[in-house]
């Protein structure tokens, strides 16, 4: 029959991949020879008319309109194709789990959707991250700033604002936190437990958590603070804030602080703050000289030792096999989903929780990934999307 009819959707934008998939869906129908799914630009309309589409079918279209024109062998197939096209266009965008209009494009938009949210995940190109983080803090949100390439000056300013408002500014350059059992950024799925951690090293944090998990212990809160928190200029602002939160958190019985070797004055300030907390604190400044126990504070130089000390405080021994993943590691028993009641911790409440099951993995790292969704390149959203199956 050639092109005889078209479905026109006014002011409709769909991603090219979706346009192609609509075309493919129509072309897979019996009796449909091909399907044009194009934006109604003058050039395209002219082409369609050249191919036989009656001009009346595309009268008054503008370049913002979407035209779907199937070419079918018989009237019944054409009808079916047109109906299917309508359905596909009216349905949700093909590759998205949610309708496009419910995905916020700005922090303010996200807050409108989730007014009770109290944590913003910022993942934007560095130059935009500080402004987004500042917006979030000024609206009373804790910040998890995955972005790096934020200037040290901006980091100092952000953390000062956070301090003044009693908020956490995790990052910039923060890869891992586990808040109320909800992994943010990249985190291993580990059991809940009594160890609270604050770390300026995401990888170090993960390693300690993994060792604790293998030894049967778990995490109350794991707070990443970004790689530069213990720089002279930043002064360990968020490590001190995290320390205080964990000190007040009834679920936390022992605190572990992790960082690459900090500036001397910052190290001293952190240890001083740790001594003021009424809970045992294990401090790991990676590669620093091992130092003797100072009151309730234990200074360690390696991650393994830090984990060991924390376990020791909790009365758990650490066996050699806890360092060496046994065979069949990936088939670890079920029930280790890091999920706790959102209301359980007075320390930090996250607005998000994992909604999907975590996939078991065969790899030795057992890493599971929480993907941070950003809705546009320059804005942050509060939502995180959980990868149900990571590999």
């Amino acid at each position: 029959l050639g092109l005889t009819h078209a479905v026109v959707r006014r002011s409709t934008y769909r991603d090219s991949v979706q346009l192609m998939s609509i075309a493919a869906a129509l072309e897979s129908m019996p009796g449909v020879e091909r399907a044009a799914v194009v934006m109604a630009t003058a050039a395209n309309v002219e082409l369609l008319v050249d191919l036989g589409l009656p001009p009346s079918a595309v009268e008054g279209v503008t370049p913002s309109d979407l035209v779907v024109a199937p070419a079918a062998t018989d009237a019944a197939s054409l009808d079916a194709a047109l109906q299917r096209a309508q359905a596909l266009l009216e349905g949700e965008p093909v590759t998205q789990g949610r309708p496009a209009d419910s995905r916020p494009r700005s922090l303010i938009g996200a807050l409108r959707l989730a007014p009770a949210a109290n944590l913003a995940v910022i993942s934007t190109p560095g130059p935009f991250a500080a402004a987004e983080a500042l917006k979030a803090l000024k609206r009373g949100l804790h910040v998890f700033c995955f972005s790096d390439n934020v200037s040290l000056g901006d980091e100092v300013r952000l953390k000062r604002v956070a301090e003044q408002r009693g908020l956490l500014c995790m990052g910039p350059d923060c890869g891992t936190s586990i808040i109320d059992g909800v992994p943010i950024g990249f985190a291993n799925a580990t059991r809940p437990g009594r160890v609270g951690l604050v770390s300026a090293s995401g990888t170090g944090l993960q390693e300690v958590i993994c060792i604790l998990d293998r030894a049967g212990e778990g995490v109350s809160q794991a707070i990443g603070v970004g790689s530069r928190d213990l720089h002279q200029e930043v002064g360990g602002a968020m490590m001190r804030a995290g320390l205080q939160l964990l000190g007040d958190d009834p679920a936390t019985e022992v605190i572990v602080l992790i960082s690459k070797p900090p500036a001397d004055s910052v190290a001293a300030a952190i240890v001083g703050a740790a001594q003021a907390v009424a809970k045992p604190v294990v401090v790991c400044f990676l590669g620093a000289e091992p130092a003797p126990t100072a009151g309730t504070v234990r200074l360690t130089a390696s991650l393994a030792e830090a984990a060991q000390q924390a376990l020791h405080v909790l009365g758990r021994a650490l066996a050699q096999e806890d360092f060496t993943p046994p065979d069949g590691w990936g088939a670890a028993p079920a029930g280790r989903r890091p999920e706790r009641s959102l209301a359980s911790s007075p320390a930090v409440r996250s607005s998000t929780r994992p909604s999907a099951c975590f996939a078991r993995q065969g790899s030795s790292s057992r890493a599971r990934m929480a993907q941070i969704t950003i809705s546009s390149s320059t804005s942050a959203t509060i939502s995180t999307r959980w990868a149900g199956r990571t590999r």
Partner: protein
Amino acid sequence: VALRRLVDAVQPSDRGSAVAAGLALLGLGPGLTPSGDDALVGFLGAWRWLSPRALDDDIRRAMLGALVDRAPSGTTSVSAEFFHHLFHGRVSEPLLQLFEALIAGTQHDVQRAADRIAAWGASSGLDTLSGVHALLLAARMAQLHVAPDKEEAAWD
């Protein structure tokens, strides 16, 4: 075919036919950024950044000016935005990396940049690359057509 016409039109330094060939591609083809637009962005971007001596830059400016004028009514707003940025000397970062690789990079750099672009959207990346390719082709053909004495002068 339209791209081929464009390649032919820009060589003889005929502003009118080059502009017409460019406008013929505007808004043409499938996609949120129609294929023709993607190709034009690749073509004119490569022209701007690689600035081949054999081609007359006034023609490029005439084409770009005409496209920017017509884009708001002639194509989707996303595409029009691309032309607007191109007019102000901005292209996407991967495209810029490709141009840099073509100017001063190794074959591997070019390959990597091109692979990155090819991965865009459904076909936009490949359409853009075909625009870049078309420009290179046009420049090469124009260079071959330059009279021998002029060619010598060009090497001075």
